[in-house]
């Protein structure tokens, strides 16, 4: 969909140096702020990832300011790559959680709006860690890497959560993901998009379509309580 939102390239002060980021917002008054957390850089994760980019643009139609960002540099050195090759994680992983925390803090300082955090793949793991520190209004986890990372922090997070996943995701077998989602119910609302593997290439809008009603409902419910 052609994005009619305004886009603004920014630099975010981070613990390991500045992070590159981009804000997107529509001309009308925003009603929420959305932080988009990208996948692992070793797996093509950046703010220009297909899903991150699509959500950044699409959610502005919901009245959101969206922030997507790049993690600070990850070493393309043999040791880091070798460990990632063998284990699926890199020595820099904890540092990337702090990068995301810096991006969140920047978004909070910039806009005093109800906050939503959306994380994709490794970004879902990062998002859960952020949410456990201070609950956002809503949390969306896309292709959460539950076979690779510990998502137990999700139980400490009070925010309503949506898990979007594909039934043929190489990163997490469907059976395992189904079991995890069931174990998290009613805390986590599941949404399965079939045959999209881990990457949802060409199907990014289906993710946006799944996010919209969930976010709207979550924010409306909390406003009603307030």
């Amino acid at each position, binding site marked *: *969909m052609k994005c009619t939102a305004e886009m603004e390239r920014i630099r975010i002060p981070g613990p390991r140096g500045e992070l590159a980021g981009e804000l997107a917002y529509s001309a009308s008054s925003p009603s929420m702020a959305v932080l988009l957390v990208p996948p692992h850089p070793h*797996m*093509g994760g950046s703010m220009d990832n*297909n899903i991150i980019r699509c959500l950044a643009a699409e959610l502005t139609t919901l009245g959101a300011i969206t922030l997507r960002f790049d993690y600070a540099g990850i070493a393309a050195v*043999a040791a880091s790559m070798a460990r990632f*090759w063998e284990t699926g994680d890199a020595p820099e992983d904890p540092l990337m959680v702090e990068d995301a925390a810096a991006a969140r803090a920047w978004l909070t300082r910039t806009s005093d709006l109800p906050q939503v955090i959306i994380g994709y793949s490794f970004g879902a793991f990062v998002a859960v860690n952020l949410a456990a520190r201070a609950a956002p209004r809503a949390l969306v986890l896309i292709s959460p890497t539950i076979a690779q990372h510990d998502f137990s922090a999700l139980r400490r997070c009070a925010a309503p959560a949506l898990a979007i996943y594909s039934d043929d995701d190489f990163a997490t*077998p469907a059976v395992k993901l189904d079991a995890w989602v069931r174990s998290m119910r009613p805390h986590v609302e599941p949404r399965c998009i079939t045959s999209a593997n881990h990457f949802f*290439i*060409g199907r990014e*809008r289906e993710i946006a379509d799944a996010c919209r009603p969930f976010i709207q409902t979550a924010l409306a419910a909390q406003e009603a309580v307030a």
Partner: protein
Amino acid sequence: MNNNTTTSSVLITGATGFIGHRILAELLGRGVRCAVLLRPAACERLGRLKPLLRSLGVDAERHLADGSLIPVEGDIQGSLPSRLAVPVDGVIHAAACTRFTLDSQGDPLATNVEGTAHLLRWMGEQGIRVLHLVSTAYVCGRRPAATERIESQEPGFHNVYERSKWQAERLAERWAVEGGRSLTIHRPSIVVGEHATGAATKFDGFYVSIRAVELLAKAMKQRGPAAVRIRGLSQGRQNIVPVDYVAAMIAGAVVTPSAHGRIYHLTNPCPPTSQEILDAAQRHFGVEGCRFVPPDQFPRSGLTSLERLVRQASASIEHYMADTPDFDRSNTCELEAILGLACPAYPADAMGRLIRYATSAWARQETPQRGDAAHFADYFERFLPRHVPLSQVARMTGLSLAMRFIIDDVPGAQWACRFDRGQLADVKHGPNSIHEDFGYRTTRQAFWKAVSGRVHPQELFLTGQASIFGNVEKAMKMAMILNAFAREFPFVPEEAA
């Protein structure tokens, strides 16, 4: 949308395209003066257009000489002429990008939506009030039935291509309504080669499924025959229409004022079933054992390697094998009656012609091009063995795997590489005995971008410029390593950069 406008001269965009050059040939044959919008350099593009017209029996030189064919340099995504040297009555907008996924340049949205918007603004400035828009029948998206109207409510789409064409129609509708102008929309379904001969210049859509069976046949030759499940509905229909029918209908509508101002589903009233197409492909390639399994019964896991091969090869069109809209053809039937045309059927022999033409065209492309083949051989058989031992890759002692590279648009460009504890243990050309853990398929251009370090291989995959077969996770991780190697030791062949 107004009608009844005589058309004696037109501007055509996309004239070098699969449908565009046929529309051009039809109109020249009807005595219509045709200006063709050609991207810079126009003379080079004209050089591509001439043989296309010649193949249809049209002498481009004669038409250039008598002024009935006029090249106009311009780009719907860039600069358009401030003034046309020869005025035109209308525009036939056939230029489009048919990618199903977004690329890093923003296509297909950039061409289909922004390009159309730019063209419409230009037409307004030029005072051109008649537009024939070549769209697609699949602007109906996920609707089970499609009308010959512009629906005000956006349907769900299968891909960004469908969405982009729907958006282009909305732009054109607004242009027509606001200015009291004439808009005719032509919505072909899946366009395939000429009915009598199968001749085509583009092999996407329907041909993706034929390619998938060809790949399957080649794999079965190596690994032996097997039963293969294909996700789809055997009685689902693939609405294929021959390009000559589409071009004749569009050209006929252009020169028939009473046909203007309507929407036409240039679709097949009796399309072949997916099973009929599969049968024809299996017959052609000498394959047996494939059967359709409905999507709701197709297994989520446990696919054989052959089944994964077919699934990955046909992923981009999989929904078209399960999801067949019912196209209203009321307007089209009336136009057919006026023009004395009809969409032909596809019995087995007609299907066979399509497949034979396509496979012989692919085989002709597979005659090695000296320059390309030499560069690829250089890379795999000399550059890699020389530089891998010097690189970081060699320090990754946990790296033991086999991978395959297939360059789709370079005949015979296929290599398999085997790593043993970080060392490049073996490189073999062609289909060979190395059993790969995973592989990459891409084009020569994308491959050279990757090995020169200009583009990350993961980005090529995520933007649809490359596909992965086999173990996707390992392939994506390996792409990280390949990128690091390419940045450490970039390879830039002289001609392929």
